[in-house]
């Protein structure tokens, strides 16, 4: 088996489980369509799945060893909360006091176990003496085997390091949180306890927003006794080469002759082997705060020796140009970072006084109003040279050219293309504006074609061009420029910088801004729809765009599964994000294997419906799921329901070409040809380069006798995709209607060749031969068709056979297959009244009965031109 084959087996197995129990066999029949090997593989995988029981349920380690239930002291460990340089912290339960506690298990480093243990215990007991809101309360200490445990108060929350990383924090938030931790340090200092390893990961921030310092003195207690007396001393000769490398950020390491600590945070005196006093804590505090504020450590240094040198020479890094941290705050930090402890503040309290903004009345003028800092979207007006005279601009159609990816990373193309598509959708909500479809503009992604030429090709009045800067993280910048096409004139430009979570409101905001610049009328309901303020989780948005990117690729089992994974991820990360559900619905209409056979395999309609409805329940203004529901209604012969959904979809997004063309197809099925032409024309205007739109628009023109326009549309469809079978079919049908059998035969022969004997094309070809009087040829094609039918069970559209039998005059056969198409609700049943290849059957009473059962209006004879 190949990986691709395995993926196919897996995809089918997944789809089988999606089906209702009773429909699974039938689904497999269709999906495997005669590929017995495939079917066996799928069935065998499903059988194993059903028998799997508790196989692999228990992790391998459990099998290899026994389960531990032994308590630590009197405490029952529940789960690990995290691990740090000093040991592992567990959530535990104290059965005697009936409360939750946090247990830290500390293992003294190897050697001098007893000494280490005794020291640890002593330090822990000292810590227990400090009672302060900003110091973690110690309940109990003890030993278990070779480990010391410390039982502490249990608080839901995170480390200060995690708190900092959770989202962007203002310098005020950061400073105020650190000030709390600083008060905890000060309280310990008052009892002559020095922390010696202060850093943000040794501070716990509770959900109550209170900071609590952890692990006082543990660093010293962890001193490796064995290495202490002999190898201590001053930094030895050859220090520079022997100096241990400093791990990137904050490793807790044991330096020879000193204490376990975190070099970049350690005061110079500590790095030189002294134990350090309260002023060493002050230094570490300032390093940690510096890192929190500027995102980098104050001193560079790859080794302990070079770090020490930087510190002693006061070589603090330059402040980053983008930093908003006020300069007075930097001055406070620099003093705390003095190499000579005598130059630092006298105490933590003195430092804290300088840090707390309340104490700094003289510097009030530096303070920025807090409301500014939380503005969700920063607007930077780059350029506004638009026509201020107020003369109305005559712009009714616009193309959004593919936004450029400024990140330089092709991995981000999906994101930039997704933003392009989203802008098109948002602008498309404005009824007074024709917005070119994504498919028709994406071709210009790499083009160097001048704008006026693109404008002629797309027949638009204006362009929106732009670029996106996004690589990772949360901030996105987009710049857009509005250009009138002829004469080419720059109308307006703007740049938006925003948090990725605000992307949805920015997209509609851009649409609103464009509308106001070109003075196009936006109706009240449209304004409401464009005023979305929903936030979206950035991971969900990215996953959604990645899923959508698969729609422009060829659907294989692998791409189908990959798209499904992305939409599932989007839904999981943000269950309220409607578009992700819509993507899922659309995906279920695009199944690779089945797609070639029928458009919606009937077993999956239930999923298509489910996902569409979920999407609409969250956002009823999405046009795509409405169109999908309209097509489902059509398959239920619910004509009124289908029309309602189509009209609503078009109202919600007047530039949605797929909605318009589907509605046009519906309308001529209803024999409302003039309306169909109007919809088709609009679809063609917004999506001029779609073979599908051109093909069905051509059919609409043909029905109202606009033969030349019809022919031009089909020619265009075939230019865009010479193998597109529906275009050849439409063209051939027109020839047949006009009695021009030879051109029909020629067109179909070519298409059969290009599409390797596609059954619909073969059926039409047999029909054309029979009508042209070439019965032998017709029968030859017919036998080819029968051969294909025999190979692939049940899944081939019956219309090939219906057309062939109709052409040959085998009415009984034709009606038998029509009955099957009726039972299985094949799409093409919709055109019962207007399909010229069914003309030979039309006078039969069975045909009228079928029309009645499908619920279509009686044919408005005489038949179309």
């Amino acid at each position, binding site marked *: 088996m190949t990986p691709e084959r395995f993926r196919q087996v897996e995809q089918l197995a997944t789809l089988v489980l999606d089906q209702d129990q009773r429909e699974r066999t039938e689904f497999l029949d269709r999906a495997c369509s005669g590929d017995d090997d495939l079917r066996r593989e799928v069935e065998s995988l499903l059988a194993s799945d059903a028998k799997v029981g508790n196989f692999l349920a228990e992790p391998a380690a459990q*099998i290899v*060893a026994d389960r531990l239930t032994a308590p630590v002291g009197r405490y029952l460990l529940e789960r690990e909360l995290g*691990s740090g340089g000093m040991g592992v912290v567990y959530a535990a339960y104290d059965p005697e006091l009936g409360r939750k506690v946090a247990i830290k298990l500390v293992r003294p480093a190897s050697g001098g176990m007893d000494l280490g243990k005794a020291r640890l215990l002593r330090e822990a007991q000292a810590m227990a003496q400090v009672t302060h809101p900003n110091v973690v309360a110690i309940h109990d200490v003890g030993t278990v085997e070779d480990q010391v445990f410390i039982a502490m108060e249990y608080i839901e929350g995170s480390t200060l390091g995690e708190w900092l990383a959770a989202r962007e924090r203002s310098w005020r938030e950061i400073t105020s949180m650190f000030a709390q931790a600083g008060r905890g340090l000060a309280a310990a200092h008052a009892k002559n306890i020095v922390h010696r390893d202060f850093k943000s990961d040794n501070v716990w921030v509770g959900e109550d927003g209170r900071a609590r310092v952890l692990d006082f003195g543990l660093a010293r207690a962890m001193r490796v006794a064995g290495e202490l007396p002999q190898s201590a001393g001053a930094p030895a000769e050859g220090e520079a080469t022997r100096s241990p490398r400093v791990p990137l950020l904050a490793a807790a390491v044991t330096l020879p002759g000193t204490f376990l600590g975190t070099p970049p945070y350690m005061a110079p005196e500590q790095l030189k082997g002294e134990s350090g006093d309260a002023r060493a804590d002050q230094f570490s505090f300032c390093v940690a705060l510096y890192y929190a504020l500027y995102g980098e450590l104050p001193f560079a240094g790859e080794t302990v020796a070079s770090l020490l040198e930087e510190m002693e020479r006061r070589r603090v890094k330059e402040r980053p140009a983008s930093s908003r941290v006020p300069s007075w705050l930097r001055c406070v930090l620099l003093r705390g970072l003095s190499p000579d402890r005598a130059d630092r503040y006298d105490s933590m309290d003195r430092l804290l006084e300088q840090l707390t903004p309340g104490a700094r009345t003289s510097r009030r003028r530096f303070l920025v109003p807090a409301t500014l800092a939380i503005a969700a979207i920063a607007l930077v007006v780059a350029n506004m040279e638009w026509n201020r005279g107020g003369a109305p601009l005559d712009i009714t159609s616009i193309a959004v050219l593919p936004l450029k990816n400024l990140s330089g990373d092709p991995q981000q193309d999906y994101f930039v293309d997704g933003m392009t598509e989203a802008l098109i959708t948002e602008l498309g909500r404005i009824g007074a504006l024709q917005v070119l479809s994504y498919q028709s503009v994406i071709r210009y992604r790499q083009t160097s074609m001048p704008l006026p030429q693109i404008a002629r090709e797309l027949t638009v009045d204006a362009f929106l061009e732009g670029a996106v800067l996004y690589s990772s993280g949360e901030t996105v910048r987009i710049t857009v420029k509005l250009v009138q096409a002829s004469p080419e004139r720059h109308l307006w430009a703007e740049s938006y910088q925003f948090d990725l979570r605000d992307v949805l409101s920015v997209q509609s905001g851009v649409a609103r801004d464009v509308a106001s610049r070109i003075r196009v009328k936006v109706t009240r309901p449209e304004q409401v729809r464009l005023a979305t303020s929903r936030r979206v989780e950035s991971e969900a948005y990215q996953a959604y765009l990645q899923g959508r990117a698969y729609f422009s690729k060829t659907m294989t089992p692998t791409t189908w599964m990959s798209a499904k994974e992305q939409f599932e991820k989007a839904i999981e990360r943000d269950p309220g994000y409607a578009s992700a559900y819509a993507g899922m619905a659309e995906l279920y209409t695009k199944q690779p294997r089945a797609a070639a056979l029928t458009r919606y395999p009937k077993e999956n309609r239930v999923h298509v419906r489910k996902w569409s409805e979920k999407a609409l329940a969250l956002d009823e203004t999405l046009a795509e799921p409405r169109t999908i529901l309209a097509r489902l209604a059509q398959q239920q012969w619910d004509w009124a329901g289908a029309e309602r959904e189509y009209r609503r979809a078009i109202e919600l997004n007047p530039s949605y070409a797929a909605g318009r063309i589907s509605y046009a197809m519906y309308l001529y099925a209803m024999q409302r040809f003039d309306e169909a032409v109007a919809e088709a024309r609009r679809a063609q205007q917004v999506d001029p380069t779609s073979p599908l739109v051109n093909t069905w628009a051509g059919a609409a023109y043909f029905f109202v006798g606009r033969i030349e326009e019809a022919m031009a549309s089909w020619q265009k469809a075939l230019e865009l995709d010479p193998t597109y079978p529906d275009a050849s079919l439409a063209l051939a049908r027109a020839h047949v209607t006009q009695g021009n059998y030879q051109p029909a035969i020629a067109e179909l022969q070519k298409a059969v060749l290009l599409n390797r004997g596609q059954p619909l094309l073969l059926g039409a070809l047999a029909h054309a031969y029979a009508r042209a009087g070439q019965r032998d040829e017709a029968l030859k094609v017919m036998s080819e068709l029968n051969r294909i039918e025999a190979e692939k069970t049940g899944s081939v559209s019956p219309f090939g056979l219906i057309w062939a039998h109709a052409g040959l005059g085998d009415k009984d056969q034709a009606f038998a297959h029509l009955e099957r198409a009726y039972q299985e609700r094949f799409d093409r049943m919709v055109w019962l009244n207007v399909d010229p290849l069914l003309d030979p059957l039309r006078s039969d009473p069975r045909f009228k009965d079928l029309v009645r059962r499908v619920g279509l209006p009686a044919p408005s004879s005489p038949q179309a031109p």
Partner: protein
Amino acid sequence: MVAPVSEVTALLATLESGDEAAMNQLVPLVYQELRLLARRHLAGQRQGHTLQTADLVGEAYLKLVNPQGTGWKNRAHFFAVASHAMRSVLVDYARRRRYAKRGGNPLRVSLSEADQISEPRTAEVVAVDEALSRLATLDPRKAQIVELRYFGGLSVEEIGRLLDLSSRTIKREWRWARAWLYRELGEERPG
């Protein structure tokens, strides 16, 4: 045991920047550490002492990596590496058990618990390991998920975060991987 803290941390950073070769250098380092830890946990501990993968991996992490490193991504990479190393440790152990039964290999880890381990189940660990190597040629991602979960002891959510996929996807991958392995172990499947 002097742990190559900075080496492991630096390799993890390299791995995060997309250099897969770092994996090959990391695995032996982590394997070494895990093997020592596992032996200490298994041998000479009192009755009922556990070998919990997460503990061992966590302990190895603690010893080998600067925990602040570059955030959880780094930690996640470590867990991926450690799951791979853990697989070797556990399979080695399971194999040793089988040798021990046959010939009294001196490598035998003498523990009372070991005798409670029913032979077929340790054999299963070895069989899964072998089948997993075959699965890796067919669908590397599924094989990795099994490794992380079955050998590494990671939860579905953790694996989802590590591989940047939804839990639903992980569950589905796990489901088909498990079905495939179950079939693969087929008749040779013990017990």
